[in-house]
C-alpha cells in the first residue's frame, strides 16, 4: 500500500482525531491527538490491509524555542511502524504539552515499546501511562533531570563519585 492510501485508511478510521498528515518524500506521517493514539496504533497493527507488526522506533522531539513552533505543544512523541507482510511504513506522531507530559503506553501492542518508552522517559521526561516499569534505561538512578531536553545545560556535571567540576 502506498503512503497516501495508508493515510487515507487511518483518516477514514479515526477521522477528526487526525490533526494533520503529510507524505514528504515517501514518508507518510499522521499527527493524531493523544486521546486517539491507542486506537490509531491498535488499528494500524490489527487492520489486515495495514498489518504494522513491527514498532521500528519510538522517540520524542523537544520543540522548545524551535523556529515556527514557539506557541505549540513542546513535545512530540514519534512512532515509526513497519509491516513485514506488506513492506510499507508509516510514522505516527502525537503532541504533548510540557505540564501534562503523559502518553498512553504502547507496551500492550508491541512489547519492544517497553524499553523505548523507558528511554524516552529517561531522556525527555515524558511519562507513559500503563507502562509496567517506567524507570531510567540509560542513565543511572541518581541522575537528576532529563538530558535531551533543550533546556538541560550542556555543561552540567553529575558525577557519581569524585569531585564535581
Amino acid at each position, binding site marked *: 500500500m502506498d503512503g497516501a492510501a495508508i493515510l487515507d485508511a487511518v483518516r477514514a478510521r479515526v477521522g477528526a482525531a487526525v490533526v494533520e498528515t503529510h507524505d514528504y518524500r515517501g514518508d507518510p506521517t499522521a499527527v493524531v491527538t493523544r486521546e486517539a493514539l491507542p486506537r490509531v496504533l491498535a488499528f494500524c497493527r490489527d487492520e489486515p490491509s495495514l498489518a504494522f507488526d513491527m514498532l521500528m522506533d519510538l522517540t520524542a522531539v523537544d520543540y522548545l524555542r524551535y523556529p515556527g513552533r514557539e506557541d505549540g505543544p513542546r513535545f512530540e512523541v514519534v512512532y515509526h511502524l513497519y509491516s513485514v507482510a506488506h513492506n510499507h511504513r508509516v510514522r505516527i506522531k502525537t503532541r504533548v504539552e510540557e505540564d501534562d507530559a503523559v502518553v498512553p503506553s504502547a507496551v500492550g501492542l508491541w512489547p519492544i515499546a517497553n524499553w523505548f518508552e523507558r528511554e524516552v522517559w529517561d531522556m525527555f521526561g515524558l511519562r507513559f501511562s500503563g507502562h509496567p516499569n517506567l524507570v531510567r534505561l540509560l*542513565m*543511572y538512578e541518581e*541522575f537528576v533531570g532529563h*538530558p535531551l531536553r533543550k533546556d*538541560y545545560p*550542556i*555543561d*552540567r*556535571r*553529575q*558525577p*557519581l*563519585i*569524585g*569531585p564535581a*567540576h
Partner: protein
Amino acid sequence: MGIGSFFTSKLDEAIGWARKYSIFQYPFVTACCGMEYMATACSHYDIDRFGAGLPRFSPRQADVLFVVGTISHKMAPVLKRVYDQMTEPKWVVAFGVCTCTGGFYNNYATVQGIDTIIPVDVYIPGCPPRPESVIDGLMKLQDKIATQTQRY
C-alpha cells in the same frame, strides 16, 4: 650509618629496575582506543620488549591500570572499584584524550578526565594515540617506576 644509607639507595634502584621491566597491565578497554592498544600490544610494535607483554585480566594480579577509552559516569564506579582492587604498588595510565580530559565528549554522560576519580601517573593524548605515543608513554612510566622511592 654511611654504609647503610648507600646500600638502601642501591636496593631502591635494583627494585625499581626490576619493577619497570615486569609490568603486568590490566587493560580497562571501553572504546575505540582499544584498537590502538591491541595494535601496540601485538607483534608489530611489541610491548613485550618493555616487559609489558602480559596483560592480566584480574586487577588483583596487575600493577598498571591502562584506562583505554571513554569513561561514562555510569562506568565511573566500576573503574574506581577496579582500581581499589589492585594491590600496591600500582600505577595508572590514561590512554587517549577521553581518559585525559573527556576529549570532545563535553556532555552529560562522560567523565571529564579520569583523574577526577583515580590518580593518574602518565597521560597519553591522542584520538586515538599512535602506537609510538603509547610506547613513549610506557617508557615514561618506566622512568617513573625506576626512579621513584620504592615501598616494599
